[in-house]
């Protein structure tokens, strides 16, 4: 705990130093109506949210930098507590059968074990539930949506989206009317958002959820212990797998980059916006790189043909417990994933996509080149990936179900 404070305080000092000599122009973003969250501005970050957060104990894993936090939603323990309760509350769905945790199960690093998720009405989601470990560091949210910049903004998609239906809330009043009479929420909202006459609002629901999600820090795996100096934390096989992971022969680390193993990661120290989407050659239905609907990736947002099949790189932290894999859950095991990358793309010989040969897709990432992998090497790589599991996170009582008996 002391250490977390020390890191944060030090980082505030760093930011202060940056602010003092920053030559970056101040934001010239066009004004957006309706009280849009102010653009992130590191020069004010040191004095506004960070000050408010000095009393917030992040309990950062070793060497984790602070995540970016919107200036209008500073962290607080009670707000995170409120967000956690909302996250696990089935009243968050229209028919009150499913909470956020219905698809984001802590024991699976907040995924659901299904190939693709299932909403409160039973409707199948086209995509797999995403791992929420360290989600506060992701520079874009969802599998392929560069427009979703904050967790506050993203929360509206599962709450109100109707294609597919996830939580299936009819409207904000349906939810707020359920929360208002509950004395636990009356108390939590009042303390999380002090000085407001009516704190039980949709805005504050999204802020509390986002605050809780930013506390989901996972970085105490065997691999982290190894990095911290415990040479025995990894087995010999895992150490060999690590060498392979970070090798040019396999290229894994180019996209699974950084301390979260995703090249769409940002921290409060980041000075540039980084996000990337990649086509990993899972499909090529037409010889031109087509992915099957409704999972065509970044193209669905940008409309650009070159964005067909491009998805954000998921973190590999806790990856051993987040099967099945890929945006559509089409790989059952880590071994299957490695087979896919070894082949340089997926060839499909049966079923509705028979004839699809992703390895020949003109749109596939230049890093998906294929490689040979003998059984021992595969076992080593899988063993390394398994060393990224933070067992404590998966049962951390701070992140568990507050309604559990």
């Amino acid at each position, binding site marked *: 705990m002391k250490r977390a404070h020390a890191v944060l305080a030090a980082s505030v000092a760093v930011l202060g130093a940056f602010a003092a000599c920053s030559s970056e122009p101040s934001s010239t973003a066009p004004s957006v109506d*309706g009280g849009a969250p102010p653009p992130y501005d590191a020069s004010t970050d040191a004095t506004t949210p960070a000050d408010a957060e000095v009393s917030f104990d992040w309990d950062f894993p070793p060497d984790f930098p602070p995540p970016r936090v919107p200036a209008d939603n500073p962290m607080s323990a009670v707000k995170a507590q409120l967000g956690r309760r909302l996250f696990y509350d089935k009243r968050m769905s229209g028919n009150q059968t499913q909470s956020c945790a219905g698809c984001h199960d802590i024991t699976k690093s907040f995924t659901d074990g299904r190939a693709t998720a299932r909403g409160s009405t039973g409707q199948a989601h086209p995509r797999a539930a995403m791992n929420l470990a360290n989600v506060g560091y992701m520079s874009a949210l969802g599998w392929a949506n560069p427009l979703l910049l904050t967790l*506050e*903004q993203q929360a509206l998609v599962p709450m109100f989206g109707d294609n597919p239906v996830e939580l299936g809330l009819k409207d904000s009043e349906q939810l707020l009317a359920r929360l208002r009479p509950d004395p636990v929420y009356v108390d939590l909202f009042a303390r999380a958002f002090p000085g407001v006459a009516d704190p039980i609002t949709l805005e504050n629901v999204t802020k509390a959820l986002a605050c809780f999600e930013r506390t989901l820090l996972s970085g105490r795996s065997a691999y982290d212990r190894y990095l911290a100096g415990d040479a025995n934390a990894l087995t010999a096989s895992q150490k060999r797998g690590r060498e392979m992971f970070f090798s040019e022969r396999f290229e894994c680390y180019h996209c699974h980059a*950084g301390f979260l193993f995703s090249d769409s990661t940002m921290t409060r*120290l980041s000075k540039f916006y980084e996000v990337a989407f990649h086509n990993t050659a899972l499909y090529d239905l037409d010889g031109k790189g087509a992915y099957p609907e409704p999972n065509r990736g970044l193209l669905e*947002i940008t*409309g650009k043909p070159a964005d067909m099949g491009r998805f954000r790189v998921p973190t590999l932290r806790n990856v051993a417990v987040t099967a099945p894999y890929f945006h559509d859950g089409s790989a059952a095991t880590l071994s299957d994933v490695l087979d896919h990358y070894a082949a340089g793309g997926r060839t499909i010989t049966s079923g509705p996509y028979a004839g699809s040969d992703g390895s020949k897709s003109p749109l596939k990432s230049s890093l998906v080149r294929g490689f040979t992998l003998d059984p021992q090497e595969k076992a080593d790589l899988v063993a390394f990936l398994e060393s990224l599991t933070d067992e404590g996170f998966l049962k951390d009582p701070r992140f568990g179900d507050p309604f559990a008996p």
Partner: protein
Amino acid sequence: MNSKMSIAASVLATAIVCPLVVFACSSDDPAPAAKTDAGASSSSSSSSSGGSSSSSSSSSSSGGADAGDPAVTINFGAKVGAEPWSCTKQYLDLGTTKAKVEPKDLRFYVHDVRMIRSDDQEVPVTLTVDGKWQSADVALIDLEDGTGSCTEGNPDVNAKIVGTAPKATYKGLAFRIGVPFAKNHGNPTTAPAPLNLTQMLWSWQAGYRFMKIDTQPLDTGAGAPPPFFMHVGSTDCVGDPEKGVAVTSCGRPNRFEVRLPAFDAATQKVVFDYAALVAGADLLVNGGGPPGCMSGTTDPECTPTFPKMGLDVTSGAPSGAQGIFKAE
């Protein structure tokens, strides 16, 4: 910045981020698009068709609004062919496969409202802010009342736009369907009504649905058809994430102009016709993409419906006249 601070800062930054920082792969970085959104501009082309239908005399200067301007009410309605649209009715013979449908929703945003003066000059209508249906920039028309098959709706209905316009002789009406660009991509949880209605959110596109016109086609014996959603909104949007701005422009604005050269606000309504919107569509089979049309360029249900709104389905730009709103 003094040098001590500088050294301390860089050492600390390294300490915090290392040892796992490796190079991000940049070969696939999306190139930012340089498309523009045509949303905010208002058309001021004049029309010479249509007869005069109002007879008050004008004393104000062209287009100028002032606090003493007379009130204007523009009434809206909806039909399915010849029949009035209602949540408690079913309708026959719609689209290319003569589908039978029941309504689920009918709401749309209107902005850039103009009266067409007898000399063809367009005069802006100043919307009366009411804290519910109208802000200064946009009005919500909501024709579903939550009854019958409109199970996801609510009892509140709004079938009119209220505002003021300078005293003049007007013969026509023009407006645009949609939310103006400047208001389309803010934070909906703090936006003023009518932009805080969650049912009109299009969160995955960081904007609003301009039109939400949904029906449920009924089983004709060949199995239950999927719902037919008609969700029109801006797509192909790009932002400036470095500055924290989700959307700075949209490649396909998908806002369209409704121009009624002969319209008498005192005696007529603006009437939406669902049968006209879906005349070229197959409501019984989803030919691809989401059920119905969610503004996709390759969605088979958008191809026949977008032209009815006067929209080019590929560019999202105006193309020809709309054919789903009439003066009656």
